[in-house]
């Protein structure tokens, strides 16, 4: 589908932001989005949560002086304290985005945006208040601080239990920057367009009928200050090259697509310079290639065209129980939905009940010590992994980031929590996973990177497959759906290969697997070693009402799950 090529994954959410967006209620934001993107008579849908004012690309290279930011921050903190806040924090943010969209031989859209403003959070008598402003002057920001205090005082009247904030030491003046090699905004737009068009050409040369490609680039320049005595200047970079290739068999009317095997990453433009050592060959008998910290869009586009064509005539799967061998580009999404979301403490406690739902992994459930998965399942949360989307020095409430265990040898040992949640499970400190999508939204608990640890013993994908009698190898993330308490899920993929008697035989199609989270993770029979480890990531993890998007990565090595129920998704329509 023309516009339906940006996959997005979520707590529930931001489904294909494009085609399946309901074009219904009148929302100014959507309308402006359409207007802005209607250039040249094309009607492209808007991209969620990457808003801001449209600017000249040159403006994306500007930075704000930290001394000025400190002065502004102090104005906010002083105003909040003077008005009666026991604690306050301020985030002065410049959120910069550029996206380039192309299809086949033409550019569809190039957009550069900037959003500048500040959000102030104040705690008064145990109640939170939040206010934001785009007037970034000492007076403007102090006014926002005063309204945050006023809102806190109003909320305090209906508050049943006071907020308890885990103690946090101030860090003084510190800074952190994503360790990028090349700022994507320093690369001329022309060069980016040429790269996407070259990838499109590769796909068309290799038999694709259509290709839509896009490059998303993000820079969050965030300054955080709090009454704890922290002044934290951070420069966060992210990039996401992606495409969808479609092949059509005109005679039968059949069409099949294959999406890019890239990941959204916490890297600079260097991600787009291929490096042989960062390619991971898929199993023998497939033409799958995985990508670690560097991506080869030209090679992947060519391969995607071949895959899409092959899918047109691939055998339809026979439904039944199979041993699944899932590659990291696929498994990341399953981890996201079946481990990442159920272990968010606010979901567990019911704060998201009216939206994405709650969780089976309640405090009572955890106390029963029921295995979440088999002994081979070790899952960690972190905001540190180089190249990951979660990697930052400090979170959006000034807590230094870390790594911690969620599942250890199959048992749930911990949740994800922030400063005002830590006490709910008797913890003395925040995990450092608080995030807001912009200066104008309030920060709250968001999923850190959640990753499955690779196996300790040396094990290659081919060795793993050699032990599988009847199985399916799945690569890439496809269709995804899970219930509101994270029990029952169904996942598709990009490419599927049958495994018979220890060997890959042929490509198959129409595959989706359905399982229960606990049964699935208890059927885990181990992962390949570190050499196979890879991140998958998304920009569009949605949570909250109004919904906010967050970027998150999930690492894993190729992993085997035994006896999983596979369905055939082919249907006949009139």
């Amino acid at each position, binding site marked *: *589908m*023309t516009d*339906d090529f940006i996959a997005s994954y979520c707590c*529930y959410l931001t*489904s294909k932001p494009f*085609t*399946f967006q*309901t*074009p*219904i*209620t*009148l*929302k*100014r934001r959507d*309308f*402006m989005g359409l*207007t*802005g*993107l*209607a*250039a*040249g*008579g094309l*009607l492209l849908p808007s991209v969620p949560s990457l808003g801001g*004012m*449209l600017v*000249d690309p040159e403006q994306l290279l500007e930075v704000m002086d930290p001394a000025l930011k400190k002065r502004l921050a102090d104005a906010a903190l002083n105003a909040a304290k003077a008005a009666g806040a026991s604690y306050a924090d301020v985030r002065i943010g410049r959120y910069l985005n550029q996206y380039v969209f192309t299809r086949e*031989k*033409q*550019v569809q859209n190039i957009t550069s945006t900037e959003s500048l403003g500040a959000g102030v959070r104040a705690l008064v008598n145990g109640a939170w208040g*939040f206010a934001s402003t785009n007037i970034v002057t000492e007076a403007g920001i102090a006014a926002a601080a005063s309204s945050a205090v006023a809102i806190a005082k109003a909320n305090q009247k*209906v508050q*049943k239990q006071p907020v308890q904030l885990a103690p946090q030491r101030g860090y003084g003046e510190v800074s952190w920057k994503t360790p990028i090699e090349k700022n994507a905004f320093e690369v001329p737009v022309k060069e980016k*367009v040429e790269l996407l068009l070259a990838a499109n050409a590769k796909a068309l040369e290799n038999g694709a009928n*259509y290709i839509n490609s896009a490059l998303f680039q993000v820079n969050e320049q965030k300054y955080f200050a709090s009454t704890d005595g922290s002044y934290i200047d951070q420069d966060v970079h992210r990039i996401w090259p992606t495409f969808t290739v479609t092949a059509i068999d*005109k*005679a039968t009317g059949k069409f099949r*697509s294959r999406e890019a095997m890239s990941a959204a990453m916490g890297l600079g433009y260097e991600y787009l310079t291929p490096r042989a050592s960062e390619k991971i060959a898929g199993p023998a008998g497939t033409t799958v290639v995985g990508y670690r910290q560097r991506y080869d869009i030209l090679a992947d586009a060519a391969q995607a065209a071949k895959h899409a064509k092959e899918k047109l005539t691939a055998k339809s799967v026979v439904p039944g129980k199979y041993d699944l061998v899932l590659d990291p580009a696929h498994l990341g999404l399953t981890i996201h939905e079946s481990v990442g979301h159920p272990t968010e403490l606010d979901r567990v406690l*019911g*704060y*998201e*009940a*009216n939206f994405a739902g*709650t969780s089976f992994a309640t405090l009572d459930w955890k106390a029963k010590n029921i295995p979440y998965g088999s002994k081979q399942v070790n899952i960690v949360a972190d905001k540190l992994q180089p190249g990951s989307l979660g990697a930052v020095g400090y979170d959006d409430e000034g807590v230094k980031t870390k790594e911690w265990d969620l599942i250890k040898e199959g048992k749930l040992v911990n949740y994800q929590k922030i400063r005002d949640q830590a006490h709910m499970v008797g913890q003395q400190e925040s995990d450092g996973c608080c995030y807001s999508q912009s200066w104008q939204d*309030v920060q709250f608990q968001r999923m850190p990177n959640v990753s499955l640890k690779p196996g300790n013993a040396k094990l290659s994908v081919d060795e793993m497959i050699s032990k599988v009698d009847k199985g399916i190898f799945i690569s890439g993330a496809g*269709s995804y*759906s*899970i*219930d*509101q*308490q994270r*029990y*029952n899920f*169904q996942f598709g993929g990009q490419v599927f290969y049958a495994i018979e008697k220890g060997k890959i035989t042929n490509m198959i199609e*129409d595959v989706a697997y359905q399982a229960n989270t606990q049964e699935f993770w208890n059927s885990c029979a181990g992962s390949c070693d570190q050499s196979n480890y890879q991140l998958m990531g998304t920009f569009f993890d949605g949570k909250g009402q109004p919904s906010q998007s967050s970027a998150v990565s999930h690492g894993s090595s190729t992993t085997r799950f035994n006896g999983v129920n596979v369905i055939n*998704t082919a*249907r*006949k*329509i*009139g």
Partner: protein
Amino acid sequence: MAILSKDESQAILKKVLSFSTADECEATLSGSNGGNVRSARNAISTSGAVDNVSLGVEARFGKRSGVATCNEFDDATLRRCVQRAEEIARLAPESPEYMPLLGPQTYVAAPKSFAAATAGITPDFRATQIGKTMKICDEKKVTSAAFLNDEAGFVAKRNNKGLEAYQQYSNVEFSITVRTPDGTGSGYATADFIDAAAFDAGKLTLTAAEKAANSRNAKAIEPGKYTVILEPAALVANSDASLMAALMGALDARNADEGRSFLSKKGGGNRKGEKLFDERVTIYSDPANAEIASLTFAGDGRPQKKMTWIEKGVVKNLYTSQFWAKKAGIPDIPRPGGWIMEGGTQSVQDMIKGTAKGILVTRLWYIRPVDPQTLLYTGLTRDGTFYIENGKIKHPVKNFRFNESPIIMLNNLEAIGKPVRVNGNLVPPLKIRDFTFTSLSDAV
């Protein structure tokens, strides 16, 4: 200042155009006032307010186009915004799909798209409404999580070819999930309106609370093909993809002509004119409909008119970009705002009475495409799923995962009820035979 009058906004737009040196220039001014409040565990969790006006300027030189935006309206800022759009346009590549800006257009009137009561919503109104839900749930000893969101605003357009448009709109939307303290029952209700005067959070809370109480201790029954009654909120969602929105989102002519749509024809072309659904299926859009009045012009200025999409099961029209309409030589019809599926007079209760065996579905959730070739979607039932026998609800049943296509669903039509507004559309409850549930879920 968020809701500018027609004269105020056109005055700004005229000034913007007067600063332009481009071959073509179009300016869009839009703004809104609104706010939201969210609760969980019977307490307010977050609240916020929005008040913003912004201007988008598109400048074109030949086939090159540039867009810039601003949200201040003094002469200097407007001038800079126009200049920036022109600078970006000069650097842009030529668009092979260039279409000239539209000249003067005639739009139908839709005065009902805006209600003063919605524009006048205050933080007190929001707190009172959400307070009502919390009070009811405290009394009933159940837990609620709810969200109220309102917005009132305007959109104005003008270009140097003579196009001029202005309209005001408003919308208020509410949803609530009520759970029983033992965690075995959950119920949901949602509604949206143009006019806040029609909105009552208390009434919706009672519906959700009743569903929660009645859905306690659900029994598991085998997955398989069942006759279902899908309530309107199971067909269209406020905050998720949905089966009917998936269908209406797939009526794009270009995708069909390019061979990548369920409407693509073997050997080329599209299936417009073919009967693909039960003959009782008729879907049209009408921006002037009082209950779902919407913008009478599209983002690019094309008029939104009353339009039939599916009539008696036959695909009558597909929407398209201006470029594709010209290239393919087909009618130039923009994608609609809200749409209306014709129905009958039966309520959900009437439909239950007429059902020997079946399942009542309050809502479907986490709905995602599985195969675009057939519009196969998957997702789950949620917040109130009940077994019906001999015209009565017998007992709650555990939630199911479905794998179903709206195309197949609208061929297995048993009965159509009375349409109600959901997310800006008018959607009837539907009774469908052989709806495919593929597995059970333990989720409540």
